[in-house]
Every structure is written in structure tokens, then in C-alpha cells.
């Protein structure tokens, strides 16, 4: 597990599936987007919808929304490297509800591969 220093304030984007962080970056057509302020509070959160699931479309959305941090599940190295090259911090292989992932980020707990089964069991079923 790689620990990345939390950056606040920051604009976060999370590809989602129901209440969860989407298992696959390229198969999600919805994204949660929100601000984490210096106090770790979430501001201006909204859900954006893509016309269809696609990794390119998601990358475009991330760039157009000026997101600084992306939290996702499985992502191909091609897109991971591209986002890193664009100076975007990517936390991948995250398994949790998106609310829990945001909370973990705000508290500085989020890591690559972060897994929270308890939040998951309380959240949406597979």
C-alpha cells in the first residue's frame, strides 16, 4: 500500500457505481465531485453523468472539472500514468462506499488499495 500525502483544500473526483467507488474506472458512467476544504469538510458536491462508460470520457471529465485528486477502483496503467502526468493524484484499488472514501481522504487515512468492508456491507450490495 502506497501512502500519499493528503492535499487540502482539493477538488476530488470519484467514478461511482451506486453508493460505491466504481470497481472499474472505465466502466463507470457517473462521477461524484466535491471540494474538501482545509477543515476537512465537503463542499459543493454533485454527481455528474457521462453519456456512456469510457475511460477516455472519464479522463476528459477529470480534466475539464479541474479535479486534483481521483479516487477509483481498478484503472489501467495507461490512464493512471496519463492522470499522474497531468499532475493529478490518483488513489486506485479503493474498495469502499464513496462517502467513506471521501471521509478517509479528509482524515488523511486514504491509501492505494484502501478497503473498508464495514462501510461496504452497510452500503450497497454487489
Amino acid at each position, binding site marked *: 500500500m502506497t501512502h500519499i500525502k493528503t492535499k487540502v483544500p482539493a477538488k476530488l473526483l470519484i467514478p461511482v*457505481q451506486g453508493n*460505491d467507488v*466504481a*470497481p*472499474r474506472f*472505465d*466502466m*463507470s458512467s457517473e462521477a461524484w465531485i466535491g471540494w474538501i476544504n482545509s477543515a476537512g469538510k465537503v463542499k459543493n458536491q454533485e454527481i455528474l453523468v457521462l453519456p456512456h*462508460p469510457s475511460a477516455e470520457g472519464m479522463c476528459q471529465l477529470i480534466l475539464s472539472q479541474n479535479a486534483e485528486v481521483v479516487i477509483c*477502483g*481498478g*484503472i*489501467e*496503467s495507461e490512464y*493512471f500514468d496519463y492522470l499522474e502526468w497531468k499532475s493529478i493524484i490518483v488513489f*486506485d*484499488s479503493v*474498495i469502499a462506499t464513496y462517502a467513506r472514501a471521501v471521509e478517509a481522504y479528509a482524515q488523511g487515512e486514504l491509501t492505494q*488499495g484502501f*478497503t473498508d*468492508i464495514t462501510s*461496504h456491507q452497510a452500503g450497497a*450490495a*454487489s
Partner: protein
Amino acid sequence: MHTSEWLDHPLTVQGLTQAQVPLPRILNRIPFCVALLDTSKRVVFINRFMEALLGVTLEQVAGLPCQHVVRSNMCASRCPLKIMSPDSESVCREGDIIDRSRERIPVRITFAPVQDMEGNLAGWLECFEDLRAHKELEETRSTAYSFGPLLGHSRQIEALFRMVPGVAQTDSSVLITGETGTGKDILAEVIHQQSERAKGPFVKVNCGALPESLLESELFGHQKGAFTGATANKPGRFKLAHLGSLFLTEIGDLPKPLQVKLLSFLDDQVIYPLGSTKGVQVDVRVIAATNRDLQSMVKEGEFREDLLFRLNVVRLHLPPLREREGDVRLLLDHFLQVFMNKFRKQLSGFSEECLGVLLNYAYPGNVRELKNIVEFAVNVCQGSEIEVGNLPSYIFQTVEHPPEAQEHEGAQAAGPAPIQPSSEQSWPEVERQMILKALVQAKGRKSVAAKLLGWGRSTLWRKMKQYEIEG
């Protein structure tokens, strides 16, 4: 059993051997990636091959929803487990996963329900096959102007090669058209092999090879006692092709009553075996092929228009060899290599004169004929390269007078049949004339004609069908 309990106290198998065997030890020996899920599709167990494929350990993923562990492109919308029941047959699908090192891996997944002793759903079993090596091989092959066993680099055939992978991945009915010998059967098998049904059966039925009554039973099966001689239930080819593909070759020869039954199947995927009122649901993809012009058959009322529309969802046309620019040379070299290996001969190739003849020949029998010519030539060649003298003699007549030969053939088919074969006639032409003459002599009575020819009635029927002689 809860997942954490499973990890602490792994299940054991009793009764198989004298000693109790922990189930993980068995599953870890199976050289496939195996995942066992509970009824809510959470991971209970993954074997070590699966750990290696995903880049995780069982401890890391036990109890997590399968879709977050496997990360397949099927999970979100195409997961077969959503529609499977405890007594469903196994389902096989091709897709990809993303492992923990962020690599996309093509996989074939087999999904199966696990039942308890009472037949209730106890969980799910998923077996994964890593297709990376397979796909790499395919890519290498495609650079060598081939697609599976199909070979060619002409514009027409390359357009077809581009279409086939996409077509194979859909579950639509496919109609393959093309002259005899163009490779319709091979293309059908390639489509099956490239599809998600590749692990399922590929069942071939020649619609022109059997009389109507037998064909119906052969295709749809029958119940015991449905007719005299039906001493046991017969499943039929449709049922045998369950979860696979059914290839109906010579679909133009399918009798009209069976065209209705096929149409009904294509509508609801239910077959009604002979003598049964109860329908059987089967999951079969139909691939049909013909060398006949179905559109004109529809106009003449010989083929149902609605069935043509149903089958014509995806139409692939295999061009005749004479229209495939540059492919003759490629195929000549390919088959030369094949037969040199088969007959253990070392030949340097074709002489220039021989190549000239072969490149100018019309190949009415298409790739099959070309292959036979090369096989013949390699067989008879005694020198170091294939000379003109090693080629079968009949091809020179067509090379010299191709238009006349065509006209001659047409005239023979229509006119009164001279029974004396000329040197230009092939045996099938002579046989066709013999049948026509016998039928004329017998005033159309097939039993008398069969007697005149010294054949059984069924032989005459089969030959008439073969030469498209209307009874």
C-alpha cells in the same frame, strides 16, 4: 459458513478418500483460477492461481463483493449471475479484468451455481482462464494474412477479417453466403471459436443431406413413441448445441415446414421435439450458410421471406477466389508448404510456366479446388519443383476456353442429355445427364428411373438433390 470462519476452519472433504482433505488443498491443485462466492456474491475462497492472476491474497479479499475483487468489464451490467438460478447450466463468457498492477487481462470466465444437498443455492463458482497467450498468438497470426484457418490478403477478404471479430462477439444469427469451396464451414467455425460460446459445442447440420421427416427429428429431437421406431427420447441437434452454436449448412435446402419451425425457434428460443407438446428452452446461436441465392428463392416461393429476414441479421459474403486479387499466389504457397510437410517432400516451388497456368485458372471450385490441385501436384511431382506436367489435366481445358466451357456446362444442364461423355466432361456432369436420361425414359417415375440406373431410390433421391434436379 461465514467467510471469516472459512478462513479459520477451512472446509474438509470427507468420504472421497480415507483421510479428510481440506478443500483449499484440492482447489489449489487445479491449474485454473477458481473463485468460490457465497450466495450474496462475496468472495469465500480464491485458489492460488486466482491470487496470482489478480495480484491479491485470499486474506485481502475474503468477504468482499466479487465485482470489487475481480474487476471484470462484465460486472456492472453483464454479470450472468444476475440471471442464473440454482439449477442453471454453466455459462461461459469472454471479457477482461484489471489486475492490481493495472494491467488489463483478457479472460474467459465460466460461471456455475453451487447447490447444497437439497438442491438449494449454496454459492457460486467462477473459473477464469487467462487468454493473454491466446490473444498474442491471434495477433501474430493476423499479421500473417490469416484469421484462424482462413487465409488471404486481398481487399475483399481483409474487409471480411475486420468484420468477423465484431460479429463473433454479438449473439446475432449469421448468414454466410458464397460459392462452393469458398470456406463457409470454416468461417462458421471461426465465428464460433471467436465468440463467447467458444467453450460450448459447435454442432453442424447439413440441411440438404436428409429427407424432411428425418431432418425434423434430427434437428428438434423426438419423444419416445412419437413415431414407429422411436424407441427412446432423442435430444436433437438444437438441444445438443445448447450454450453453443448450431451451424445449418445448405440452409436453402431446408424444407418449408421446417423453415416455419426454425423461424419459431428464432423468435422465442424454444424447440418442440416431435411428439411433445412441451417446449424446451435452449440457448443456441444459429449460423446458417448457403451457396444458393436466397433472395431469388424467396421470389420463387421456395424460401420463406420472414426466415430470410431473421437469418439475415448479419450477412457475411465469402467472395469467390477469382475476385480475390492476389490471394491465389498466397494460397498456392500456403498449400504447397502444407502438403510438402504432410508428404515429407522438399520442393523449391512452382516453375514459372506452371505458375502462369495456376494464376490464370478460374478456380470454379474456389479454395477447395486450389487446395486439391496443389495436393495432386505435390503428390505426383518427382522433381525439385512443380512443373506444368504435374498439374491435373482438366485445368488446361478451362484455361484455354473458359467462356465456352461455362456455356457448354449450361447447355448440358438444360438440353437433352447425350449419354456419351465427351473428353471435356467431368464425372458429375455425366452422372447428372444419366439421371436426367433415366428420368425421361421412366416418364418421371423415380422408382423406375432408379431401377434403370441400378440404384436404390434413396441414392437417386440424394443424387437428384445434389445436382438440384427437381423431382
